């Protein structure tokens, strides 16, 4: 760092020529750097604008040919083979089916693990369990897809439910559940840990057991944070691509049967991108309409979850 000049040290206003030049240079550098930093910040804003514009532009193009009514209410999805059908509902139902299975696994497991880590586990146990959760969260999603297809379906599902398709919603849902489990556990644990100690002490003082304190005092107090973790996990599950593209199959059908092959929105986008559909065709534009639907769904889920997060922050901080 530059040492202060004598003039500055004496506190006089009048500075010598070179010193003044240096001051000017410093100020110019300062402005330049602020400009560079603002430009960098603009990139992330531009990314959002870019995503929204691309999706809107291509989706509007698509809706010029296919009516939104047909798209959102049709129950048949077959844009690549004639007779062409453009009803997105089977893709949405496939997505929600997989996400529901995932949540059904991640929600109870994640919450119990969170309660265990926040209320029961000794620091030593915590320091063993937490890294496992971190590693689980860091496993690439394509690996979960491999696991679903080559282990979960043949070794767990098919022995229990004979006749299950090689590709099925259940195996995809199970691995996506494992994938979002660390997220539910970590966020819920943070919410539980944020509950003031005084609340626990008061309940213990009234004679409640540890379980009663945990389930009737701490969990209700942290409820908005816990709900936020569920919704965020739901959003992750809805947007998950690789595991689902590998394990869930590519049969867009309107079904609630988890042993059948389904197709999710992300799975469809992946399928078309890998195929040889011409890029300017209406068939290719379907992926942007589907992508827009996906984007809006996850955005709504994320915003709702942020509202819940803000609520628990307001109460205890």
């Amino acid at each position, binding site marked *: 760092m530059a040492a*202060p000049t004598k003039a*500055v040290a004496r506190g006089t206003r009048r500075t010598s020529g070179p010193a003044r030049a240096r001051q000017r240079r410093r100020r110019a*550098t*300062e402005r330049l750097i*602020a400009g*560079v*930093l603002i430009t*960098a*910040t603009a*990139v*992330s804003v531009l*990314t*959002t604008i*870019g*995503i929204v514009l*691309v999706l809107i532009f291509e989706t509007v193009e698509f809706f010029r040919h296919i009516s939104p009514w047909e798209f959102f209410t049709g129950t048949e999805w077959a844009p690549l083979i004639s007779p062409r059908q453009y009803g997105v509902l089977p893709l949405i139902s496939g997505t929600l089916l997989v996400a529901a299975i995932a949540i059904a696994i991640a929600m*109870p*497991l994640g919450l*119990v*693990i969170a309660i265990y880590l926040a209320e*029961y586990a000794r620091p030593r146990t915590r320091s063993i*369990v937490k890294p*496992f959760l971190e590693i*689980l969260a*860091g*496993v*690439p999603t*394509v*690996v979960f*897809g*491999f*696991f679903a*297809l*080559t*282990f979960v379906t043949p070794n767990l599902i098919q022995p229990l439910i004979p006749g299950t398709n090689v590709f099925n919603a259940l195996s995809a849902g199970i691995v996506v559940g*494992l994938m979002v*489990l660390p997220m539910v*556990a970590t966020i819920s644990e943070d919410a539980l840990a944020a509950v003031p100690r005084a609340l626990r002490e008061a309940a213990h003082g009234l004679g409640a057991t540890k*379980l*009663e304190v945990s*389930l009737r005092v701490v969990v209700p107090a942290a409820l908005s944070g816990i709900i936020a973790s569920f919704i*965020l996990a739901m959003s*992750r599950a*809805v*947007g998950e*691509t*690789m595991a689902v*593209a*590998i394990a869930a199959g590519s049969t867009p059908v309107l079904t609630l049967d988890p042993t059948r092959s389904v197709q999710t929105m*992300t799975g469809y*986008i992946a399928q078309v*991108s890998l195929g040889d559909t011409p890029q300017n065709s209406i068939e290719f534009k379907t*992926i*942007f309409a589907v*992508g827009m639907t996906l*984007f809006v769904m*996850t*955005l709504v889920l*994320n915003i709702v979850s*942020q509202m819940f997060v803000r609520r628990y922050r307001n109460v205890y901080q």
Partner: protein
Amino acid sequence: MTVAPLAVAARWRPRLATRSRSGRAFLLLCYAATAIGILSLVVLLADTAIKGAPQLSWEFLTSYPSRFAARSGVLAAAVGTLYLALIVIVVSFPLGIATAIYLEEYAKPGLLNRIVQTNIGNLAGVPSIIYGMLGLAVFVRALSLQRSLLAGGLTIAVLVLPIVIINAQEAIRAVPSSLRHASLALGATRWETVWHHVLPAALPGVLTGTILALSRAIGEAAPIILISSIAFIAFLPDGLLDSFTILPIQIFIWVSKPQEAFHAIAASAILVLLALLLTLNAIAIFVRDRSRRSAQW
């Protein structure tokens, strides 16, 4: 509240035995849930290792993909992944850290700042395949980079940018403000303060966060499906504008084949990918531990 009904009070029993029994039962439930979580990770890793280890060899690491599983290798995919990681480092780290500095050290709190912050939070939650669509429309088509390494790298860089920003912000926020005040009081400008004092203090934290973002980047495949459509790459990328493939995509292609032999080499490729991630995370943990030891406040 009104007076508590005496009848209720008289009927109240502590039921201590039942209550402590349900407490013990719940603890068992806790153990079970935690065990399921840990066990599934162990099974996943063990299953992959058992299936993948036999095919791992020097040939596998140095061969190109082939129509025959036995002759296939991960060379193109592994090199593609490393190049991609390099682009992500060069693009998203400076951008992300600069954004974090702006938001933490320069921006005045207000509506605009809040909007940018919310926006970054939301970007982190956008499904990765949507970034692929952005990349396809902007990098591949509008900037006509074609289906090149550069287009893929930029797409993934944009994808991990919010993660880099959020991590870097946390690291910068952890630097005590007394450090800033001291520097500013001695006549340093804002940037001089940031460059000479805040950044060096925050650097270990920033590095840890960015390495974690990088491991996310390396495992990501969904956006690249839209960017790199060539499934069969039997050469190394020659430059930024060459076509490419990456490990997760190679794994996806092999898993999607019906033959068992390809599933087996997919497992081997997963082991290569996991080894790469493990190395990165080990570096991150090393940096984090060192920074903890050298932290002086």
